[in-house]
Each structure stands twice: as structure tokens, then as C-alpha cells.
């Protein structure tokens, strides 16, 4: 394997792994806090057990997210030293703030996990909230750093030198808001559907119905609100990308030729050699509207961008289709769920609706990963958009392929073990939480 491809694969793998774990680690504390609040207000034992059960999940995911995040902070240098040499001082501001947020999260988690019966109950609840809020802040800050790579700001690039560096301006680059908003909603939607789905499965299997129904309701409401808001945030992102990164937008929609008005392609098979797309459904003018808010506007195609600045079109296009497709499906499930809520129909009489949620367990994360593929692959061949190429940033050390193999093995085994642990936690719910007096 070529060293450059190996480095990119290793980075993609590490990010792909870290993203799932950190999303769960930043969203689940909020579910936990809601359940904890209900326990404090209603004294209903089930909510206390649910809070404890979820907090174990949070502990497992936080630990895995923390070590994979530590790994990433080194990996940026291990794989992309030339990038970090220049970028570190410019886009480092969000990272230094993120260090603080992450630290606070770790402290708060210590309080929360070990604080049962030891802290004032409302301080204890508050530390759980702090875990969630600082986790969310960490997420936003890291995404702001990534946004800088898409939308470099806060320096002047003169004759290959980075001058007049302003880290604050770099942090508040043009892409930070749209990316962070999209990511936060995605994290809530994906985690919400995954958690709700697992509990829905348990309800369908007739296990500890009361426990799982309460859990389901908390997770589902977060998931469905997220899924309803996500298209709006997606619209902001699309308009933003159209303005800043026309090559990425063109790759997302496999728009090889500049068109006015431009159609939206749904599906289709991309042939990168012939620069054609076969079998796609075309909606006339829709892309013009999505990108510029006007059905007749011109959308820049890849023909207006030099060939050596084209991102891989097929991967970006497919990933975008997967993301939007799943997003739409989750939106529909959410609408059905809300309709059901308004009509006050008891959920237990609707096994088909619960089955839909079970189906959705992995979907949110697939969409989330696909979205990151769109962002990252769509930015290629650049590591700093328009400034530095990815291949110029890679480490001079040969043999990165071996590193890639080793870390792949590690991440795959970790994923298997975490899945196994969760399976055991869920399987043990009847034993651990049925007899309140035996709680520990």
C-alpha cells in the first residue's frame, strides 16, 4: 500500500471511529440528565435505575472516545507533520479551548459516576449536566477547527508563507457555524435513534417494559426533534458550501457541467472516466434552488475547476446520497412518531412503529459517517482548502501501511469489545435493576 493512501486511510479510520464514540459520549449525558431529573422530581425508582444504566454506557463511551481523541491529537503530527507545522498556530485556538472543555467533562464525569449517595443530589445532577454541556462544547470546538480546513481564515498567505496570524479570526471562520450546527443535530439524531431503537427492541421482546418504555420516550424525543431540524441546517450548509467550495458541491451532485438551471440528481452511477452519471432521477432546477435559493440560478460544475483540483466525485456523490436518503427516512419516522404523540395513541399498541425505530438503530450513524465522508473527501485534494495539498502534508516516514494495519486491528477489536459490553449491559438489565434493594 502506498504510504500516502495508508496515511489517509489511517486518518479516516481513526476519525470515523472517534466520531461515533464521542457523539454518544456527548449526547447520552443529556438523556441521563433528563432521566435523573425525573427521578429527583418523581421519586420513581425506574428513573434512577435508568440513569444508572445509561451512565454505565456513558462511562464506556467516554473512555473509548477519550483515548481515541488522545490518539488523534498525536496522529495529526504523526501523519501530517507539514500540515501541523503551519496550521498548528493558526487553528490551534479551538483546540486549546477544547482541552479545557474536555478536562471539565472528565472531572464532572468523575463526580457523576462516583457521586451516588455522596453528593448533594442537585449538585450531583448538575455535574451530569456539566458532562453533557462541556462535551457538546468540545464537539463544537473541534468541528470549528475542521471548518478552518474547509474555510481557511485568520492569516495572509504570501509567497508560501503564513503571515499576520490571527487565531481568533481563524476559529470564527466562515464554515464553523454551519458545520457545528449540522454536526450537533446529527449527533443528537443518530444517538437518539440508536438508543431509542435498542430500547424499542427490548419492548418488542417483552423485557422490563416499564424501564425500556421510559428510556425509549426520552431518547425518541431528542432523536425526532433533531431529525426535524436537520434539513434546515442542511440547507444552510448547502448554500454555504456552494459559495465557498464549489468543487465540493459539484462533486456532491456529480455536476460535471455548469448548468443554468441545474437539476438535482438522486442516485445514479458515476463514471469518473467519462464524466457521466447514469440512471439518476433528475429534478429540474432543484439544485439551483438548494445552492442559491433560486430555481433559475447557475451552478458551477467541475468543468470550471482545474482538473488537478477535482475531488473524488463518485465517493462524494454516493456518500451525499446516503446521508440525504437516510436523513429523509428519519424525518419521516419522526413525523409519524409526533403524529402518534399528538393523537395520544399508546405506543405499545403500535409494534410497527417500534419496529421502524429498531430498523433505524444503525441508520443515524451511517448518515453521520457519510456526512463526514462528504466533508473530508469533498475537500480533497486539499488539506487546507486552496492553500496546501494533502499529499504535501504527509509524513516523510515510510512504512505507514504497517501502522495502518496495526491501528485497524486495534479499532476493530475495540468496536467488537464495546458492542459486546453493551450487549451484556442490556442483557443484565433484569438482574441489575429489578430488585431495587440490591442496587449498588
Amino acid at each position, binding site marked *: 500500500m502506498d504510504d500516502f493512501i495508508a496515511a489517509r486511510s489511517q486518518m479516516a479510520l481513526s476519525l470515523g471511529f472517534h466520531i461515533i464514540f464521542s457523539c454518544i459520549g456527548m449526547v447520552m449525558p443529556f438523556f441521563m440528565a433528563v432521566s435523573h431529573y425525573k427521578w429527583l422530581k418523581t421519586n420513581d425508582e425506574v428513573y434512577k435505575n435508568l440513569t444508572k444504566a445509561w451512565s*454505565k454506557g456513558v*462511562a*464506556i463511551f*467516554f*473512555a*473509548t472516545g*477519550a*483515548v481515541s*481523541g*488522545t*490518539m488523534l*491529537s*498525536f*496522529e*495529526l*503530527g*504523526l501523519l501530517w*507533520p507539514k500540515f*501541523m*507545522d*503551519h496550521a*498548528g*498556530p*493558526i487553528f*490551534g*485556538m479551538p*483546540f*486549546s*479551548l477544547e*482541552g*479545557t472543555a*474536555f*478536562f*471539565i467533562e*472528565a*472531572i*464532572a*464525569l*468523575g*463526580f457523576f*459516576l*462516583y457521586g451516588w449517595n*455522596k453528593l448533594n443530589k442537585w449538585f450531583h445532577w448538575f455535574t451530569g449536566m456539566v458532562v453533557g454541556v462541556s462535551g457538546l462544547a468540545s464537539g463544537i470546538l473541534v468541528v470549528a477547527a475542521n471548518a478552518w480546513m474547509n474555510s481557511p481564515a485568520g492569516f495572509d498567505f504570501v509567497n508560501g508563507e503564513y503571515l499576520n*496570524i*490571527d*487565531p*481568533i479570526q481563524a476559529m470564527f471562520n466562515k464554515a464553523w457555524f454551519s458545520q457545528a450546527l449540522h454536526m450537533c443535530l446529527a449527533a443528537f439524531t443518530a444517538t437518539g435513534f440508536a438508543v431509542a431503537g435498542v430500547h424499542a427492541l427490548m419492548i418488542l421482546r417483552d423485557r422490563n417494559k416499564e424501564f425500556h418504555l421510559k428510556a425509549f420516550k426520552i431518547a425518541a424525543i431528542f432523536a425526532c426533534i433533531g431529525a426535524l431540524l436537520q434539513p434546515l441546517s442542511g440547507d444552510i450548509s448547502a448554500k454555504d458550501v456552494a459559495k465557498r467550495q464549489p468543487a465540493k458541491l459539484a462533486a456532491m451532485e456529480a455536476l460535471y457541467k455548469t448548468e443554468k438551471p441545474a437539476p438535482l440528481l438522486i442516485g445514479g452511477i458515476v463514471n469518473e472516466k467519462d464524466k457521466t452519471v447514469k440512471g439518476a432521477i433528475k429534478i429540474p432546477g432543484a439544485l439551483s434552488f438548494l445552492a442559491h435559493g433560486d430555481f433559475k440560478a447557475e451552478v458551477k460544475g467541475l468543468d470550471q475547476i482545474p482538473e488537478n483540483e477535482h475531488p473524488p466525485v463518485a465517493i462524494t456523490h454516493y456518500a451525499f446520497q446516503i446521508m440525504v436518503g437516510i436523513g429523509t427516512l428519519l424525518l419521516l419516522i419522526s413525523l409519524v412518531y409526533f403524529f402518534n404523540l399528538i393523537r395520544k395513541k399508546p405506543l405499545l399498541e403500535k409494534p410497527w412503529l417500534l419496529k421502524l425505530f429498531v430498523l433505524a438503530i444503525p441508520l443515524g450513524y451511517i448518515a453521520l459517517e457519510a456526512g463526514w465522508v462528504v466533508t473530508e473527501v469533498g475537500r480533497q485534494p486539499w488539506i487546507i482548502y486552496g492553500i496546501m495539498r494533502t499529499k504535501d502534508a504527509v*509524513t*516523510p*516516514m515510510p*512504512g505507514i501501511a504497517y501502522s495502518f494495519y*496495526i491501528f485497524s486491528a*486495534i479499532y476493530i477489536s475495540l468496536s467488537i*469489545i464495546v458492542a459486546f*459490553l453493551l450487549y*451484556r*449491559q442490556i*442483557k*443484565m438489565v433484569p438482574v*441489575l435493576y429489578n430488585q431495587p434493594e440490591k442496587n449498588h
Partner: protein
Amino acid sequence: MKDVVITFLCMAILLYFLLGGADFGAGIIELFTSTKNRSKTRKTMYHAIGPVWEANHMWLIIAIVILFVGFPHIYTTMSVYLHIPLAIMLIGIIARGTAFVFRHYDAVKDDMQWFYNRIFRYSSFITALFLGIIAGSLISGHINTQATDFYSAYIAGWLNWFSVAVGFFTVALCGFLAAIYLIGETKEAHDKRRFIKKAEFMNVAAVVFGGMVFIAAQRDGIPLIDWVFKSNVGLSAIVLASLSLVLLWYLLIKGKTKVLRILAGFQVTMILLAISYAHFPNFIRLKSGDAISLLETAGPEKTIYSLGLALLLGSVLILPFLGYLFYKFQKKEE
């Protein structure tokens, strides 16, 4: 502001050494504990470091973020020429960090525990060893940025007598810190004695490996003796460390746990000071004879300024909260 940032960097490295080091040490102690006492050691350890577990490892993140934001040249030189030991250390960090949490949160306690324990112990040892090797390599002067072949560029920089000796010295120090910490965490007289024995064993090991560091330095042509004995600060630090060693053994026999902790931390701090003071602010010594200095390679002024502000702001938020965490979970013991 540069001074503020450098102070935070030194503080983060020191705290990682003391707190993270004690965590590594806990795994190392477990490795050197007889099978019949292991589960007890494990319980005491979990009790002791569970609540502060994640927080202890944040110091590494703080240090690395300061490096890559404020001193990118140092960060990238390390990343390129110490790629292999860094990657091994990271594998260790991943393995022990997850194994520690997994073994506690596995809802079924069965044979899997055996597997988690194994991983935790060995990876604790390896992480501490390679952390030491990396630290040793930075000052060994073996890093060769002009090398043209793979071995001299990516291997010889860290695989040398001095770096490896520092690695084992670090392992012994971590074990020592953990043993001292654990003495105060158990109430049973039998366990206390066991941890005292461990602390003595690790202390002897540290002295032996410390001696080997000097021998290896001599062999590799590193002026360690000059650094330590020719500067007043180095000399006084080493004298203080030696004096405290005597006091420490006295307290160990008496079993005074609180003072012991402070003293052990003080001793390790003095050792770090003795080794690093002479070439401060140089952070990496190169084979060519040049050095990469913290002062000369600091990032642009605005970056350092905002980094300093972020760190000050962060410490206002973090330190009281962290202090309360340590306080709260200490207090309940009494």
C-alpha cells in the same frame, strides 16, 4: 505571555508524570503482585483512582495541545523522528484506558476479566516504558534530522542505551509513586505492609535504574553528570532528592501516609528538575549539536497570547473543580 505558556507546559508535563505516572504505576504494581493478592490490589486501586482516572490523563492532552499550538516545530520534529515510540505509547494508552474501564463496566464478571487484567497490566508497563524512552530521546542528542536512511532517522533516535535506561527508570518511578499512593488508600494492616514492601522494592529499583541512566549517559556520550552536578539548581535538586530519600525510608517504616505522598511527589519533581534544568529552554537536542528551544521556536505572538489567555481561563475553571474532586473523594475515606 510566552512565560505563562511555558509554565503551563512544564506544569502539565510534571502533573502528567506525577498523576498519570501513578496510574501507570498502579498497573505496574499489579503486574508485580502475586496472584493471590491481585484482586485485593485491584480493588484498592479502583477505589483510589477510579474517580480521578479520566482527569489524570487530561494533562497529556493539555501538554500536547500547548506543543502543537505554541511550539509546532517541536511537535512536528517529535512526531516525525519519534513516530515509532509515540505510536507504541499510544497503543499502550488506548489499551490500558479501555481495559481499565471495560473490566469495571462489564456487567458479567467472568473469564473476560482475565483478559482485561492482562491487557491492563502489560500495557501500563509498556506505556510508562515508552513515555520514558521518548523523554530520554528528547535530551539524548540522538535524533538525527539529516539522516538519509530509515534506521538512523527513525530508529537510532530512540533505540539507544540512554533512552531505554530512562524508560526503565520511569517504570520504576511510576511504580514507586503508585505504591506510595496506595499505602494511604487501604485500611487493612496486612495490605498496608504489602504496599510498603512494594514501595521499598520500587524505590530500590528506581535507584538502580537511576544509576544505570548515568552509566548509559556516559556510554552514549551525554553530559548528564555535567548537567546535574555543574549547575547549582541541578545540584541542589539532586541533594534535596537524596536527603528526602532518607526521610522517606524513615516515614515508610513509620507508615505516615500523607507526608509520604507529598515527599514522593517532591522527590520525582526534583529528579525531573535536575535532569531538565541545565538545558532549559532547549526541548530537543539534535545529533547535529543544535537544539530546538522553546523560546526560539515559539509560534507567532498573537497565537501565544491567545493560547496563554485560554490556559489562564481554563485553569480558573478547571483547578477549583479538580481540587474539589480530589478533596471530596479523599474526605470520604476518613
